[in-house]
């Protein structure tokens, strides 16, 4: 994802053709990441317990996120613009799948009557809306129309959690501004903000009432990384440390410990701390 962005190569209904769709569905790495993000998105929805809800899955693709919804006992309707993806989704679905699929373009609005859903999730889809693929498409208008109709079809007091890969700050600003114009409250929740790989951005939108944004995962679950939609992120991320503070010399115990803590923050598996860390081996070894 970091190197190649599929949304630059053309419209999604053409990019996700049969080959790409089946490659997508059979790639275990993609499936693992997508279902992990879907589970996190459902968690962020904060649905009432022991009440099966009716959810909207925007950009459902091959139904990976739908499986995650079904696994939690909820029901869903999946929207996608790629018929090839939907075919795979509908063919792969088994008895445990609690959802239907609809061929629809989110930029044209969500085709449901008001108050239909108890929540909405979207995994890696809305960044596609930031690109115009024909002369009569205006990304800003499409985003606005999408959020407006999404707001309409959600019940009051429900949430929409949209995971996406923002290309740059102005893109996430554009998306948030349009969501706010449509009437949503909310902002970004960034999981593992210190890691390039594990970092995931979730746009958490709430209908009605100002509520606290859920906490992001950081790996150690102590530090909290929350952002409101008006914050300028770039300016906040400066580290104002004491410049005279010396860096630990490479290979020293302090250096090993600092590196270990850094990797924990990034959400990686690291060895526990030990009195042997950073020690030299004896020559007889």
């Amino acid at each position: 994802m970091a190197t190649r962005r599929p949304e630059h190569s053309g419209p999604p209904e053409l990019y996700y053709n049969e080959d790409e769709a089946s490659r997508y569905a059979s790639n275990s790495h993609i499936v693992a990441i997508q279902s992990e993000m879907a589970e996190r998105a459902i968690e962020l929805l904060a649905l009432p317990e022991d009440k099966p809800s009716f959810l909207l899955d925007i950009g459902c693709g091959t139904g990976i996120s739908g499986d995650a919804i079904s696994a939690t006992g909820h029901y869903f309707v999946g929207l996608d613009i790629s018929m090839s993806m939907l075919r795979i989704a509908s063919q792969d679905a088994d008895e445990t799948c609690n959802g239907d699929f609809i061929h629809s373009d989110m930029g044209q609005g969500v085709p449901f009557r008001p108050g239909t859903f108890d929540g909405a999730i979207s995994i890696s889809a809305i960044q596609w809306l930031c690109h115009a693929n024909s002369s009569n498409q205006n990304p800003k208008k499409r985003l606005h129309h999408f959020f407006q109709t999404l707001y309409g079809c959600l019940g009051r007091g429900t949430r929409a959690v949209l995971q996406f890969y923002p290309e740059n700050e102005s893109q996430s600003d554009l998306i948030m501004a349009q969501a706010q114009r449509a009437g949503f409250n909310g902002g970004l929740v960034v999981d593992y903000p210190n890691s390039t790989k594990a970092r995931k951005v979730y746009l958490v939108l709430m209908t009605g009432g100002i509520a606290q944004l859920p906490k992001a995962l950081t790996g150690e679950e102590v530090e909290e990384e929350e952002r409101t939609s008006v914050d300028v992120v770039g300016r906040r991320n400066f580290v104002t440390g004491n410049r005279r503070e010396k860096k630990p010399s490479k290979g020293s115990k302090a250096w090993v410990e600092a590196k270990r803590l850094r990797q924990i923050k990034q959400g990686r598996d690291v060895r526990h701390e030990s009195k042997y860390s950073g020690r030299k081996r004896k020559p007889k070894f």
Partner: protein
Amino acid sequence: MTPFQTMRLLTHNFLSSGFLKNAPTGYPLKLNAIKIETKEADFDEKFIKNMIPKINYECLKSTALGIDSNVHLPDALPEDWESNEAFLKEVHRVLMCVEIVEGELQCPDTGRIFPIRDGIPNMLVQEEEKMDEQPE
């Protein structure tokens, strides 16, 4: 390969073509089913109870009667629907077990037809057919 998951009446009950130009409500979409299938689904009482206040009962009944004459739904939502298990089971059967494989949906306002193929309704429209944007 035949598609497994196809559109249920549950989804039809909420679909609307209100995004079309000149379609003030776009609801309920008229369903012309060509091929329907009936499937078994687990009865999830909590879910049905959660959905009943939200579904449009009239639309559900008329649509269900239109494609399946074997529907036993009362004319109006019974007062005791929460405890009436036979009623809940019938709603479950109609909502969750009847699936439309081939057919079409028609917008009640504009007459625009949305085809259903392989159980997936195609709600795509041309940009010109869309509702005009509200002025910025």
